[in-house]
């Protein structure tokens, strides 16, 4: 289909261009909004009391609003020697524990 030989003053070219541009932009906006709304509807339906993640502007609290836990106060049970090892010493412990594991039986 050709649109040649139609008379069209300069103003209408501008308005037509505005129209096409507006169409393009609004379809992008509609796409974004529809994705966002349906995603939100899904989340609300799936997790009715979904808490919002905590944000601390000072950077002290984590996403659950808790303070950082001291790693030295956490203990892991070592499967090799069956002892509780401080979490921040675990890698160092493994190095020794695994190499002499046979001796400790």
């Amino acid at each position, binding site marked *: *289909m*050709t*649109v*040649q*030989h*139609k*008379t*069209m*003053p*300069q103003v*209408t*070219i*501008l308005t*037509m*261009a*505005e*129209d*096409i*541009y*507006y169409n*393009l*932009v*609004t379809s*992008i*906006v*509609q796409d*974004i*909004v*529809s994705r*966002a*709304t*349906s995603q*939100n*509807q899904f989340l*609300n339906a799936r997790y009715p009391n979904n808490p919002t993640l905590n944000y601390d502007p000072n950077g002290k609290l984590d996403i659950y609003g808790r303070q950082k836990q001291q790693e030295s106060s956490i203990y892991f049970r070592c499967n090799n020697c069956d002892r509780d090892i401080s979490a921040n010493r675990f890698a160092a412990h493994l190095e020794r524990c695994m190499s002499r594991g046979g001796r400790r039986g």
Partner: protein
Amino acid sequence: MTSSDDDAVELRAQIQQHLVETGNYERISNKLSQSLLDEGWIDLVKKATKEAIEDSTSINFFEILQKVEPEAVKMVSTKTKNEIMQQIKAFLCEIVDT
């Protein structure tokens, strides 16, 4: 008055179809979304949508759209808008007699 309106609507449909058939529509559309993404507009609109959802009690697409759309159209930078408008106008000038 109605007949000229009909003419305008028909003309627009013809131009749109011609744009699509020549592949120019896809090119312009891709360019627009690329520059909107580059200038961070897409993320701004996402943020505005999120805020609109939090503000309103219901998550109705049309309600949210009514709040976000006018703002979002205004948020497009003049540079992007001018570039795209330039391309559309250049295309229109080629295919219509003035």
